[in-house]
């Protein structure tokens, strides 16, 4: 979150950066969201300490036990402790959320910035491909990648990253297209600055704000997508726990053990909600509409 202050790049003095973070912390929604995210991170980090049982250990005699004192949230059809599995399920969720979005940002941003900055046939080609990809549901894209590349945690990260790349390409492209028309870019060019220098020095730092917002919201989407893929049996493979395959177990045993899906589902919703709220709060503070929505805001800035 410390990066939030870099939205306007080098032009922002240090004091302003710190005050932005403070503004974020005064927003009660953002504060709760950050607390939830912190709690999730701790849950994932210390899963082996927190979980009372081995998440994959089967005790067939204790199969489908309702919630009680030994098994706080009951057991599944193999007698595995649901609570321990849910705690360990936080790991793939956060890991996939962070890694796939990082990958998507690192691939999508440069492509979008270059396409938007240079324009011409490259831009036409890139935005054509992006439009087609964006019209596809991201889950379907991720399913296709998993079909081709195989399942497993790395492949899930790759699949979700690929399904999110077009979002960041489009965002970076629209920022670059607006920023390249601004006076200070023209001024920099007239001083003899090269294209690469302008991209690196002016366009990139000023595009960071919207990308941070979209990345935060992207983590929410990626966590949901990982759960979706695992729910369909295409993501994290049992016996390894993931919130998605835990919810599927709840559907499969819905008559015998209706409690199975509730804990993983609630944690999943809570995580997605926390990243969505955080994203909205960061958006309110950085107000990326200044950069993204274009014409109406241009006059105000220049």
């Amino acid at each position: 979150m410390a990066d939030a202050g870099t939205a306007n790049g080098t032009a922002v003095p240090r004091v302003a950066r710190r005050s932005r973070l403070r503004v974020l912390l005064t927003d009660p929604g953002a504060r709760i969201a950050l607390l939830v995210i912190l709690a999730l991170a701790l849950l994932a980090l210390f899963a082996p300490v927190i979980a009372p049982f081995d998440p994959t250990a089967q005790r067939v005699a204790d199969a489908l036990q309702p919630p009680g004192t030994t098994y706080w949230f009951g057991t599944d059809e193999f007698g595995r402790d649901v609570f321990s599995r849910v705690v360990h399920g936080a790991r793939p969720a956060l890991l996939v959320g962070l890694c796939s979005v990082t990958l998507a940002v690192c691939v999508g941003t440069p492509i979008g910035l270059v396409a938007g900055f240079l324009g011409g046939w490259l831009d036409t080609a890139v935005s054509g491909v992006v439009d087609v990809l964006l019209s596809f549901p991201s889950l379907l894209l991720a399913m296709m990648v998993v079909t081709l590349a195989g399942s497993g945690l790395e492949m899930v990260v790759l699949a979700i990253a690929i399904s999110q790349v077009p979002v960041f390409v489009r965002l970076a492209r629209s920022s670059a297209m607006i920023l390249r028309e601004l006076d200070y870019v023209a001024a920099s060019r007239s001083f003899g600055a090269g294209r690469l220098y302008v991209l690196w020095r002016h366009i990139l730092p000023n595009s960071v704000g919207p990308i941070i917002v979209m990345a935060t919201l992207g983590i929410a989407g990626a966590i949901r997508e990982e759960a979706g893929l695992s729910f369909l049996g295409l993501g994290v493979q049992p016996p390894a726990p993931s919130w998605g395959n835990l919810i599927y177990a709840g559907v499969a045993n819905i008559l015998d053990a209706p409690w199975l899906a509730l804990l993983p589902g609630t944690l999943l919703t809570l995580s997605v909600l926390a990243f969505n709220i955080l994203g909205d709060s960061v958006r309110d503070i950085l107000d990326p509409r200044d950069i993204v929505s274009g014409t109406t805001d241009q006059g105000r800035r220049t």
Partner: protein
Amino acid sequence: MIRFVLRRLLATLVIVLCVASVVFFAMRLIPADPAEVVLGDHATAESLAAFRRSAGLDRPLGEQYRDFLAGLIVADLGRSLISNTSVGQQILEVLPYTISLAFAALLVGATLGIPLGVATAVWRGRWLDLAGRVFALLGFSLPAFYLGVVLLLVFSVWLGWFPVVHSMRGEGVGEHLQKLVLPALTLGIIQAAYITRLTRSTMLETLRQDYIRTAFAKGLGSGRVYFVHALRNVMVPVVTAIGLYTGAVLGGAILTETVFSRPGLGKLLVGAIAQRDYNLIQGGLITFAVLIAGINLLVDLSYALIDPRVKHG
């Protein structure tokens, strides 16, 4: 207008063709040999060769692609590698279920989302606005399949109003409708969250316009201003967004169909992926592409009906 329609139609065909080609070549790039996947580890070299011959996998790639394109023109998507039945036939059997689900979900989403979006904008800052925004945020964050599980638990398992398993075997219209309610609510509530948010922000922008002030100034009732003057202009972006979200609705349908064990394109595709039935996967993905491209085409064409300012041709 006719030129506009023809041009959009041509663009849609090109996109479908591109997607179909990408899917075709992607399926052939898979490192795994479909023959080995289908026949298993114990297959003999002869049976593998026979399988490849009968499935046409031993022919040059260019020839396979030519036949694939020729098949596409007459909507022939080949035969399933597992059951050897026609892929097109299998898809046609389940397609009505997915289309009715997507349509019902859109209906739920629009009838909930548009009035709620207008109301939250008109009563901005009041409790209804707050409630609407909380609803939108929750709808954004609830994964479709978990919402489905919750609805299934409450309405099927505890209250017993609906069946737990939504599979279909030649029931009458009443049964079909009954089994459509929960899946459509699942997808529709999530859809409504998006539509509420978008309608609210577009409505807020519209209400700031001069012609709204003029309408109020000449003494029109607020109902007439909101629903006749404002809403008509709000509808263009909202319809666009509904069209764009339809892709997401179809994605959500894949999960929803699995939750409710309801037949459909998504469930067919997931089953095909699990069985590595490459021809069926290919056909399913192309069908999704055709559906999405077709809906985008309809959205483009519907602008003309809503907003006469949109110039065609």
